[in-house]
Each structure stands twice: as C-alpha cells, then as structure tokens.
C-alpha cells in the first residue's frame, strides 16, 4: 500500500498513450480524463474533497480504508474517500465529521449500489464516475 496521494492532474498529463500497453496503469488516457473530470467537478460543486483510491486493501479492508481516510482528513477539509479494490471486489466509501452531515450513510449506500452494478459488468471507469456523480448530487451545494 503506497501512502502517497497523487494529484490527478499529474496523471492526466502523462500523454495520450500513458498506461495503454505497458500494463503499469489500469486506466488509459481517456479513462483518466473522465475520472479526473468527475473528481474535480464533484469536489468543486460540493465544496467537499473527494478522493479516489484504486488498489489492494489489506484485510480487514474497512479498517484499511478508514486509515487511508484519516490520512486524507488531516490534509483536506470535508474529505470523502472512495476506495475500490477490483481484485478483492470490494468498495468502501468513507465520510468524516465534516462530510457525514452532507452525505448520510443512506446516500453513500445508494452510490455504492450504483458503483457495484457497473463494476459487476466490468465497467470500472463508468462505476467510479457514476459513484462520484451520485455522491456529489446527494451532497448538493454548500
């Protein structure tokens, strides 16, 4: 588990062929652009800081996701972490003290349901974008 968050702008700037055939990135440039747009727009719209983690989560996965969230929450106000582990077929949405009043657990569960539906059909990027969209819609404007 790498602890450093990368800024999505850096990843999108890698070039159109980044992560295409070399197997180092699960997303190609177009998918990265979609994810970047969804993250940036939903964060800007709501005033919360949405963050996306894609990768292995050590067992117990919920505790790992919460540990990641706590690292994020020290840096950003109103943080919301969306953690996806495609290998383990798990996803976690974590909210904190600042974001929980805007995003009740029921809204998070609905977003998780939408993401699961897309992931189960193999659409990783679509599920991530849908989930962020639903979370942003549920949180509304500040």
């Amino acid at each position, binding site marked *: 588990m*790498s*602890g*450093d*968050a*990368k*800024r*999505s702008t850096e*990843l999108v700037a890698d070039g159109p062929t980044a*992560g295409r*055939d070399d*197997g*180092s990135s699960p997303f*190609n440039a177009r998918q990265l652009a979609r*994810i*970047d747009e969804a*993250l*940036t727009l*939903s*964060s*800007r719209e709501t005033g919360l*800081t*949405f*963050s996306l*983690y*894609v*990768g*292995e989560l050590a067992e117990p996965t919920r505790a790992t996701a*919460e540990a990641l969230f*706590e*690292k*994020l*929450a*020290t*840096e*950003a106000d109103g943080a919301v*972490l969306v953690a996806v582990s495609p*290998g*383990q*077929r*798990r*996803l*976690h*949405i*974590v*909210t*904190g*003290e600042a*974001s929980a009043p805007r*995003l*009740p*657990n029921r809204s*998070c569960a609905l977003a*998780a*349901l939408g*993401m*699961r*539906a897309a*992931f189960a*059909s*193999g659409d990783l990027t679509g599920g991530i974008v849908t989930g962020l969209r639903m979370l942003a819609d549920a949180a509304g404007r500040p």
Partner: protein
Amino acid sequence: MSIAQTALVFAGIPILVIGVFAVLVFGPSELHQPNRYRPGKPWTYPPVWYIPRPVTDAGPATGHHAVEAPARPAIKAGAPAPTPNAVGGASGEW
C-alpha cells in the same frame, strides 16, 4: 469425396467461419483496451490514489509570467492524524 475432403468441408469450413466471427467480436476490444478490467480477474496494478485538482481562482494574468497553481503538499505516509474521524460511509461487494 475422400475422407480428407469430407473433413475439410464439414470441419474446416465451420472452424474458419467461427474464427472469423471470433476475431470480429473480440478483436476490437482487445485492440482498444488490452488491460480492461473483468470481474474475477486478478488485479496486478500498483495502488493509485487520486485527489481533485486544486481550484485555481487566479484572475486574468497580468504581465507575462504564468500564474502557478497553489502548491498543495502531497499526503505523507504515516502523518500523525490530529482527528481520527472516519464517521460513516458505505461498503459493497460485487
């Protein structure tokens, strides 16, 4: 017809047709997305963590130098958390 001819007509041609359709159906997606995720396949990529772009609310640039985005520090591993405050959320499996 000899046995070879029979085999060619009744096995060779169907296999050829199936092959052509298989290439037409699966070829394009393999070409465009060789590393596409499919449920149940192992995940071999290193973890990635994305945060949103910082808002650059700089007005119209005066002068010739570009306005730089405010630098936000990267999240450090093992930084002490003043408020360990995961409150809610949701989980899912697929």
